[in-house]
């Protein structure tokens, strides 16, 4: 039986998968929200460094919040009626729920693993389970997919989609799906921006734990200096590579999301005519450029493996300097009243 449902959904490429999906979903419902706005309101920005937990053979480093934070918090702060189903026990039921949504004309977001995602760039296909995409149509056995990392919309077979929705391992998606039910007419974007900034400031400078936010950055900077002595040059280079991969790989928009956040501050500042926000956005932009310098120097270090140890000392200092620059932005944001 050939069934066909196609929702008139526009695929737009974005820097970050989840804020891209959130922004595209909102646009479908007539709310013109850019990716940076969705990212900023939904607390996309984050940092954590967990040296004793190894992921892909290197310390766990994250520049982003937990999966589904952007969508969930964004919807909460904006006061939009949305549904998140965290988990389906039965994969077939998860696919049926998706089909029902499509028949009702609801584009539906899902968390997936990228290892078996057939259309994904081969160089990124590792076991990474925190990716997001939106399904907006079905034709027979094929699902139409909007993945904001990709330049164009893609298709996946039923079997392949089921497989990526049930990828296993750390942060297994377990069939998670989410969608918007209803967008009220007059959204209070200003209040949402204020709540989003407040929470991000909290997470970056006020969490009383040394490995999260700016404190985590400093900790990593100090560790970075010691890596060659502690682990040898090859491993140090791999660890450094991991920091850079987390900051620059797919779905970051570059420099560990700092550009996207800066763009958010700028857009919010322009929208509400707020000078201090605009100043903060410029500071964030400069920080992001410094991050990018860090990744360039770091990448060159990784390229030639027999590097003198001083380079790690320099990179560690640079990281601590960046932490200081970021802290100033958050302190400034902390004082801003919207």
């Amino acid at each position, binding site marked *: 039986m050939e069934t066909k449902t196609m929702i008139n959904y526009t695929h737009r490429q974005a820097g970050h998968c989840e804020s891209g999906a959130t922004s595209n979903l909102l646009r479908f419902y007539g709310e013109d929200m850019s990716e940076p706005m969705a990212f900023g309101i939904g607390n996309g920005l984050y940092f954590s460094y967990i040296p004793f937990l190894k992921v892909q053979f290197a310390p766990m480093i994250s520049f982003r919040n937990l999966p589904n934070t952007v969508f969930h918090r964004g919807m909460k702060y904006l006061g939009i009626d949305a549904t998140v189903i965290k988990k389906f026990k039965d994969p077939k039921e998860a696919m049926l729920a998706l089909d029902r949504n499509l028949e009702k004309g609801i584009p539906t977001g899902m968390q997936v693993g990228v290892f078996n995602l057939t259309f994904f760039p081969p160089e990124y296909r590792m076991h990474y389970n925190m990716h997001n995409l939106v399904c907006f149509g079905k034709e027979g056995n094929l699902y139409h997919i909007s993945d904001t990392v990709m330049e164009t919309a893609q298709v996946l077979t039923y079997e392949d989609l089921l497989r990526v929705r049930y990828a296993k391992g750390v942060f297994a998606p377990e069939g998670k799906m989410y969608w918007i039910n209803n967008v009220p007419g007059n959204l209070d974007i200003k209040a949402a921006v204020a709540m989003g900034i407040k929470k991000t400031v909290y997470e970056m400078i006020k969490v009383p734990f040394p490995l999260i936010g700016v404190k985590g950055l400093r900790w990593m900077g100090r560790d970075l200096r010691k890596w060659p002595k502690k682990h040898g040059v090859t491993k140090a280079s791999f660890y450094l590579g991991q920091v*850079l991969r987390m900051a620059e790989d797919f779905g970051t928009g570059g420099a560990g999301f700092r550009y996207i956040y800066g763009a958010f501050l*700028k857009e919010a500042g322009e929208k509400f005519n707020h000078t201090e926000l605009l100043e903060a956005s410029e500071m964030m932009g400069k920080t992001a450029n410094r991050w990018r310098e860090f*990744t360039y120097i770091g990448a060159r270090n990784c390229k030639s493996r027999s590097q003198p140890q001083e380079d790690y000392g320099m990179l560690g200092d640079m990281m601590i300097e960046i932490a200081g620059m970021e802290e100033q932005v958050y302190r400034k944001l902390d004082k801003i009243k919207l």
Partner: protein
Amino acid sequence: MGNSTDDLKDPSPGDNELIYTYNRELFYHFDKEKGFTQEVHYQNPDNQVIIKQSWDAAEQRLDEVKQLVIIGKLSPIAYYMEKILMEVPMLAAYMEISKWRVKRHLKRKVFNKLKPEILAKYAAIFEIKVEALKNPDFLK
């Protein structure tokens, strides 16, 4: 892009070849005059080196495991697990058995006594035939 961020832009063209050109991604940039801009391009050569580093490391790990399988210390399961970039906890999750059992199965001696059903399940995860799991090509 403007001239003011030239020092941040890619190093001189030609000294680096792009390795990955499957998909162009969206990147943000910042520059004092223009503010924040978006641009779609391939990952820059420096970042591509970093991505390659992790694939090279995976290849090296696979090679090391392969040697251990050849001398009979590890079972072919260890090799195929490494080949699809998995680690014990993840493989255990796919197998729906406990981690310590998977860890045991990595020993050659235990592997030799495994039941056909379990072997078939492993083979299905690795997407190979049971025969290939028992006798990998490099052991022949």
